[in-house]
């Protein structure tokens, strides 16, 4: 499936990705109010991937409902809505509002690393905060909830467990890893926001370990995210315990139909190695 924040800004962009082989698409994270996001540059490349600090631009939940409805009507796959909030209660509020269009699932972006100046530390660094948000949302709506976690915490498995205990229906991991690139001529960080989040191949081994650790601790499904670019990368994630994977940055490396390509590569591998079902490889590395 498509990872949040890559494409996914409008209903039409989600539809466009769905036509390129994605099994599901996740919207750009939507917050309580309109946010411009950071000025450019918001993305810069380095040898192992990309650094981004887009700054959660979005039209605000009220203005976004129309876009999401368009996507739901026109996309050829399920459209998962990603939400964030500046405070715990805002988070709950946005999730409840977004739920009004009847999404098949809501992903909670508890882990964006690029808005610390505005919002403080991501909620995914605290078991209590993450659990509070999930419990409050689950009390109000019955739509399945997926908690998206950050890689840069010492107790990731514990946080995932707290989310499960609070009622989360799935965990997605991981969001980007904090990083910085400095332009040596201008002697300044290249991103306007100075620091950003690392995505792409450099994130992959980190994400595989996170998924491995989480899936040993929780029983709910884990969705693997981070640097998945080929079918083999996706298979690694699944052997680590993921039941599905999300893809973002690889759109840059392989084009918009990366989803179709990755699925085909996985099928070829499974066939060549005489697996009868993908289920045989989920968690196989444990």
């Amino acid at each position, binding site marked *: 499936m498509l990872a949040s924040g*890559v*494409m*996914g*800004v*409008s*209903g*039409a*962009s*989600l*539809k*466009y*990705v769905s*036509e390129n082989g994605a099994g599901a698409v996740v919207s*750009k994270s939507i917050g309580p109010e*309109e*946010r*411009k*996001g950071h*000025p*450019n*540059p*918001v*993305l*810069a*490349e*380095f040898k192992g991937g*990309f650094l981004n600090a*887009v700054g959660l*631009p*979005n*039209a*605000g939940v009220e*203005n976004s409902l129309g876009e999401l409805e*368009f996507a739901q009507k*026109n996309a050829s796959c399920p459209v998962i809505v990603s939400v964030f909030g500046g405070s715990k209660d805002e988070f709950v509020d946005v999730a409840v509002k977004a739920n009004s269009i009847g999404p098949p699932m809501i992903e909670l972006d508890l882990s964006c690393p690029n808005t610390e100046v505005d919002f403080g530390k991501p909620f995914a660094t605290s078991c209590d905060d993450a659990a509070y948000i999930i419990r409050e949302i689950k009390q109000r709506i019955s739509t399945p909830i997926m908690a998206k976690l950050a890689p840069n915490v010492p107790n990731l498995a514990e946080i995932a467990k707290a989310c499960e205990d609070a009622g989360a229906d799935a965990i997605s991991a991981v969001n980007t890893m904090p990083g910085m*690139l400095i*332009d040596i*001529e*201008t002697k*300044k960080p*290249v991103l*306007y926001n100075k620091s950003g989040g690392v995505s792409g191949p450099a994130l992959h081994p980190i994400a595989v370990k996170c998924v491995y650790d989480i899936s040993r601790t929780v029983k709910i499904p884990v969705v693997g995210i981070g640097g998945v670019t080929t079918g083999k990368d996706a298979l690694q994630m699944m052997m680590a315990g993921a039941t599905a994977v999300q893809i*973002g*940055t690889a*759109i*840059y490396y392989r084009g*918009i139909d990366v989803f179709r390509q990755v699925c085909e590569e996985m099928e070829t591998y499974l066939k060549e190695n005489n697996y009868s079902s993908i289920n045989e490889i989920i968690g196989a590395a444990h």
Partner: protein
Amino acid sequence: MEYPKMVTVDRVEDEAAGIKNIFFKHDLQAKPGQFVMAWLPDMDEKPFAVGFQTAEEFGLTVSAVGPFSNTFSQVKPGDRVGIRGPYGTGYKLEGKKLVMVGGGYGTASLALLADHALQQGCEITFIVGARSKDLLVYTERIKQMGCTLITTTNDGSEGMQGFTTDALEKLLSEQTVDKVFSCGPEKMLLKVAEVCNGKVSCEVSLERYMKCGFGICGHCCVDPIGIRLCVEGPVVPGETALKITELGNYHRVQSSRKETL
């Protein structure tokens, strides 16, 4: 590598009131119709079409309309600017008898295309329009290149009175043309696409708010088809432009909220 490369401003020329041509000594190797992202450190980074290009240098045409373009217009020779790109589709040259329809700074990228086309032995009629005589741009450049120039002004202060599209309709009724290319104000582009639809092949160059320029952020996707104007555009066939129902109606601002045009 998607990372700004610092290049030095070589010279700045005035084109018309509020429009400057900024030249950089750098072999960009862009196709006509492609654009670059220009970075002013600490400020922002925004898209500009390549308007001039030789093996030694390239030039951008900057129309001062807001904070970024105003600051960019004030760069001096020796200043350093970050450049990423070139990005996007270019124009696709086909046929021999071509028509270019330009409005405002959009005329520059068409002039670069005309340069290439003339080298390939094409015959070019170039329609340039503006509200009045003093706002007409690149007319000298176009005449010197060897194109047939038709100018239109809304007030009739020079050339034919009316719109570029009036001149285009007249031309198409008189001659057979292989392909039409257009860049300029959105309403003009839509009209060009409509006039050409079903009659003659055409390409138009579109603009939408861009952040990454290379197809990741999704900011430049257009309704209802969802294509990215930074990758599948900015130059698209006229038939594609007619499918983009938001053209002429609304665009998305920096946050992605829709704003009526």
